[in-house]
Structures are given as structure tokens and as C-alpha cells.
């Protein structure tokens, strides 16, 4: 008997015992590569409305790239250096574009009733991304270390305190706002965007609304 020779375990009917194999099979089943990176789409996917989703992703990529540069160089950089100011401007305008594209994407999906045929969770995660993005931008405005940040913080504190949120989310505390802005909230947005995109690729784009097409 050759003890060094690997022994192949024959496949067993039903669910495999290996957790790794189960996960791999689930991924392969749920998101095969030709769905993840498709080279064909239904013929009705031709409107400019479909572009709003991908340009939102592109704007988010530039938000992250410019944000990483700003966070690496530190808070004084964007005030004291012309290069830092330019990167601050890149961050500022990519955020503006991100929101414009995201709102257009949201309205587009609403009038296409994009949640139909089992896609409600994709819509709901999109709304959560929208909400967390607003919070991320808000903490960004509070982290600017300029007059706008002072004014916004002083105004926002009453809304936060009046709702009880201010006891834990102190908009006058630069350290807390900066930490949330550069770390926790971007991780939340990025993670949910990945989930959102994977769900879209798993299910594919929704069909047009038919006469019998109840918006569910």
C-alpha cells in the first residue's frame, strides 16, 4: 500500500459536509461568472437611465481615491497646500457628483419599479446606502475645519440634542466626526454598495413593466 498517495474521497449525494465546499457551491450557483461579468444583456437595456448606476459607482471611486489621499496627508494639508486644496476640491466635487448621480439612479429605478420580481431587498439596501451616504457627507462637512464646519456644527447640534442622538453623536467633537467620516461610515457605504451590486448581478436587470405587471 502506498501511504503517500492522496486518496480521493468520492462525492456523496446531498449536501457536502465541508463548509468550504458548501459556500463555494452556493456562490457558484448564485453568482456564476457569466452573471457577475456579463457580456450580454436583454435588448431593452438601452436607456441612458441605466448609466446613472455605473456613473454613481465611478463617482464613489473618485470620492474614495481623493479621500484616501486627504486622510493620508492629514487635516492641515488641504488648508496649507495648493495640492492639498486641489485634492480637497476633487473630494468635494466627486461627492457632489456622487449625490447627483445617486438621486437620478434612485428616481430612475423608482419609475422603472426596479424592485419587481424579487428585487425588493436590492431597493431597500439602496435606500440604506443613500441614508448612510448622507451621514458620511454630513460628517465630512463637519470635518472640514473651516467656518462652514463651525456653523453647521452649531446648527446641527440642536437637532441632534433635541432627538437624543447628540448624547452619543456629538457634532461639536471633531475627533469623533473625523473618525466616523474617514473610517466607519465609508466602510459601511462601500460594503453595502458591494452587496447592492452583487444582488443586481445575481438577479439581473428587471423586465419592463407589462400591462399585467403589478409593481411588486
Amino acid at each position: 500500500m502506498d501511504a503517500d498517495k492522496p486518496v480521493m474521497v468520492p462525492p456523496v449525494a446531498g449536501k457536502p459536509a465541508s463548509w468550504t465546499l458548501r459556500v463555494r457551491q452556493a456562490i457558484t450557483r448564485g453568482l456564476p461568472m457569466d452573471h457577475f461579468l456579463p457580456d450580454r444583456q436583454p435588448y431593452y437595456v438601452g436607456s441612458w437611465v441605466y448609466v446613472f448606476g455605473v456613473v454613481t459607482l465611478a463617482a464613489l471611486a473618485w470620492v474614495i481615491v481623493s479621500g484616501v489621499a486627504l486622510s493620508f496627508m492629514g487635516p492641515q494639508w488641504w488648508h496649507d497646500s495648493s495640492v492639498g486644496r486641489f485634492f480637497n476640491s476633487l473630494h468635494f466635487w466627486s461627492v457632489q457628483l456622487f449625490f447627483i448621480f445617486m438621486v437620478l439612479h434612485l428616481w430612475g429605478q423608482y419609475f422603472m419599479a426596479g424592485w419587481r420580481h424579487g428585487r425588493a431587498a436590492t431597493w431597500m439596501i439602496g435606500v440604506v446606502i443613500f441614508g448612510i451616504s448622507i451621514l458620511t457627507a454630513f460628517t465630512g462637512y463637519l470635518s472640514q475645519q473651516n467656518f462652514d464646519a463651525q456653523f453647521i456644527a452649531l446648527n446641527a447640534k440642536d437637532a441632534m440634542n433635541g432627538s437624543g442622538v447628540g448624547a452619543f453623536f456629538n457634532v461639536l467633537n471633531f475627533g469623533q466626526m473625523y473618525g466616523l467620516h474617514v473610517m466607519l461610515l465609508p466602510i459601511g457605504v462601500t460594503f453595502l454598495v458591494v452587496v447592492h451590486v452583487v444582488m443586481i448581478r445575481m438577479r439581473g436587470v428587471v423586465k419592463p413593466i407589462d400591462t399585467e405587471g403589478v409593481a411588486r
Partner: protein
Amino acid sequence: MKQSIAETQEEYYRGVRMVPYDLLKELVVALVGVGVLTAGLAAIFSSPDVPPVTIAAWAQNDPVDFVTTATGELAGTTTSAGYGNPYNTNGPGQKWGPIAPQAWFGTRIPIDSASTFVIQPLQRAGVGNADLSAALTAWQAAKADQQTTWLDTYTKALATATVKDGKVSVDAGDYGPVPVMMSSLLGVAQSGGLDGLLVIEGRFYQTDYTQALVFMGDGGYLAGLAQQANLTGSQWGMMNETGSYPGQTWLWLYTMWYQVFPFNSTDGILGLNAGNADLGIILLMTVLTIALALVPLIPILRDIPRWVPIHRLIWRGYYAPKRAGA
């Protein structure tokens, strides 16, 4: 038609004509296009960066407002002195019926306005200053009634105060140690010392500007600058920013509620009014956000896209052959 969880894309698209598509090319073109657009906007329009206001600038440019505010902190008449939680228990806080989260979470960021903004900074800055030490001793030894009398008369005198060489002068009167205390605090502030004293709080590293900002918020100087820059609440508040930049336009719905009934009304309706507008609007926006997330489950809201023929513009290629064949 409802796509089941188990239904594959192949089953869902059965009978639908598929056409070539290049997802990665579309993504790269979008990245380049948005990158060029962003760089162009950044190069042409830059971004807002008006320097922050310091307590030193406030004390130098508007010493009467500074001294009036500091006197108000001692008297307990400023916004922060009567704010309530999370800073202190001197105000009831906002509530709507039994919903009172401002009170529920207690005093988590304690601020005693008189002590925090006036007495403690003077004690720290007054080491070796015999006049100031004597004034502080006299202040703390005086009864509350006496303190109130000094503050009342001094506050009234400040209405006709004059400024010379950065010093605030009032008509002669019995103000006790208050003028010496205020003169000292103004001097510390004008030198920039108060900016540091309110931030450092006995530590070396510090990133919390709560005390300094609350103190400036009690005064009229920063609010006046905001008014000049068209930033204030009646002009849709914090969604604005300095210059001609777009600001946080995505907060338009939130800030809109402050401009309309019942949140701009003293009396309001159903207990909602300007007095608890912050709480009411946060609750309302929470409900609206949840409703937006649940649109797929809410009748009428989920049916509007079927009734409004915008989808026929979006998918006009899909609907056109049907019309032609009809």
C-alpha cells in the same frame, strides 16, 4: 410575474432577445469620464475653505459682544446656560408627548456655563495676577443676590459701553469684581489664550471643540458672520455653505420642514411646533426614510410607476414594436 428566489437568470430571461454588452468597458469609460468631469470642476471652481472663527478674533473684533456673552454666562442667561441635556439640567429639553429622548439620555457632555467659560479659565490664566485673584475671591465670597445685582447693573451698563484700544469701558457704577474679571477674560481671549484653555481641558492631545464652539454659539459674533454669508436657518440653515457652492443639497427635504407649518409656528398642531421642531423633524424624517425603503411593500406608492408612463420613455424600444403591431 414574480421571479422566485430559485429562478435562474436563464429562466427569467427565457424568450428575451439578448444583445452584446461590455460591462467592464462601460465601467472604465464611466471612471474616466467622471474623473475628467471631477478634475475639471475642481480646477475651475476649487472648493470652499473660509478660515474658522477663533475666540481671539471674536474678542478682538467685537469685544462688547464678547464681554456681554461672558457676563451672560455668569448670570446664567445664555443659550447654553439654560440649554438642558446633554449639557446640563437647566432646561427641559425638547419632547413630544411622552417622547423625550433629550431627557432620557441625561447629562452626558456636562457644561456649567459660568464655571466652564469664565471662572475656570480665569483661575488658570490668573496665576500671579493679584488683582484678578482678589476679584475672583470677592466674587466667590459674595452671596448669590449680590452677584445677581452686580451682573444686572453691569449688563445694563454694557448697552452703552465704549471700546478704546480693545478695552471695554462702561459708565461708573457698583459692579463689584465683575469689571476686573471681564477685563481679564477679554485680555486672555484677545491673546488667543481662551481658545486653548477651552479646548485643552488639562490634556495635551485634544480633538473635542465642544466647549469653544458652544461658547461662540452663545455670542452674536459668529451668528452675525453667518448672517452676512446667508447661511442662517431662515435661509435653509445648514444645507448652505459659504460662497456660491451648492452645499448639502441632499438635505433639502430635512431643512424644508423648518420653513413650514407646524414647525415654524409657535402654537403648531398636535403638540408639534417651533419649540420641539428639531425632535419632530428628526422623527418625521425617520418615518419618511423607512417609508422610502419600504416602497416595494406600500400600495399606491409601489403602483405609481405603473400609472405614470415614464417607464414607456425609458423602455421605448420595448414598447414600440407592440404599438406598431397593434
